[in-house]
Structure formats: structure tokens, C-alpha cells
């Protein structure tokens, strides 16, 4: 099991462009969370997807949107990129049990986004 995988590893975009980041959860996991980690900061929660729906959202504008597919993989889309969106974007997967308890979150290696 490769664990959580993310693609691409890194990319460079220009202000105003749009970007899509992808995440495949750990085998057996059904929930995906996305985090933004700016340089020198801890990860900041963007949102979480479970059963193909956004379940909770952090303090991020609507320019940040996501999707979860039937195979539990997920995409993060960011529109109208700003310089401040430059960061490491982390995906984390977990398994929500029958009683909706969140188990350990497993993190991917991240996608490094640079906006110029």
C-alpha cells in the first residue's frame, strides 16, 4: 500500500490561473481532508469530503473548491490564483467508522504550488 498519494509533486502557476490538485486516499479509507501549509506555518484545514460531500470547511474563500469521486479519491481546485496561495497542499485520509468517529489521519507528501 503506497499510502496517500498526491499529484503533481509541484507546479508553478501564474496569478489569475486555475489549478487542480489530486489525492488518492490510503487503501480502505473513505474520507479525505485538505490542508494548506504556508512556509513556516502549521497545516491549515481547508475542507473535508466524505461520501462525496463536503462535510466541514475551514476559513477559506469560495475560490477553493473540491470534489470526491466514488472511488474516494479527491480533487482540490483553486480559481483566480493569488500570490498568497503559494504553499504546500496536503491531503489526509481517514476512515469514518459506523459511529462517525474519525480515526487517525494519514497524510500524503503534498503538492508544492508556486504562484508567480
Amino acid at each position: 500500500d503506497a499510502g496517500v498519494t498526491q499529484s503533481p509533486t509541484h507546479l508553478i502557476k501564474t496569478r489569475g490561473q486555475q489549478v487542480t490538485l489530486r489525492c488518492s486516499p490510503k487503501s480502505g479509507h473513505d474520507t479525505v481532508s485538505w490542508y494548506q501549509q504556508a512556509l513556516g506555518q502549521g497545516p491549515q484545514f481547508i475542507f473535508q469530503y466524505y461520501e462525496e460531500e463536503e462535510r466541514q470547511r475551514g476559513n477559506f474563500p469560495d475560490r477553493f473548491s473540491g470534489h470526491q469521486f466514488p472511488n474516494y479519491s479527491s480533487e482540490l481546485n483553486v480559481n483566480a490564483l493569488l500570490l498568497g496561495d503559494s504553499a504546500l497542499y496536503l491531503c489526509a485520509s481517514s476512515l469514518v467508522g459506523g459511529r462517525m468517529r474519525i480515526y487517525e489521519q494519514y497524510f500524503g507528501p503534498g503538492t508544492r504550488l508556486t504562484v508567480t
Partner: protein
Amino acid sequence: AQRVTQPEKLLSVFKGAPVELKCNYSYSGSPELFWYVQYSRQRLQLLLRHISRESIKGFTADLNKGETSFHLKKPFAQEEDSAMYYCALKESGGSNYKLTFGKGTLLTVNP
């Protein structure tokens, strides 16, 4: 709003010395607290959580609700403990999923 504070950006100790990484939080409810670690060129991984009350790699952390702290301790640091450590909080309630992280402490254990 909940907040996690790790007052030390950098912490340097010698091998065999005790180490304590500080974490304070602000949250009005009953949180779940975690320590995550990131070794060089590796991904972020869970080290321990307060509800498990376990010792992992010699590290322990006790939740002190009175002082709203969850400090990470190890009596004898090893060089392989050198890493970035993040304290994280999860709000109580089954519908709350997000982790709130501190800014992290870079621990360096010198030989």
C-alpha cells in the same frame, strides 16, 4: 475560535538530555489533542494522541485541562528524534473533523 500555540520555533538539546516541547491550546469544549511529527524528507505522521495515553518512541504527553496544555516529553533524547513536531487539536463532537495545528517546533538533538 480554537487555537494551538507552540511557543518555541526551535529547540536544541544534547543526546541523552530530557526534552519537553510545549503546546498550549484555547478551546471552550473538550478537545482531542494530538502530536504529529515530520522527519526530514518524510511525510507528516501521527506520533500520539491524548485519548490513547500511550508512550510512543519514549515520548509521552499529558493533557492538562486546567493549564490547557499538552506538552510532549521524553526523558532521554536521541539523535533520531530530530524532526519537526506539530501539536494539533480536534474539536469535540462526531461531526467535527478538522485538525487545528500549531506552527510547529523544530527539535534538534545534538550528538
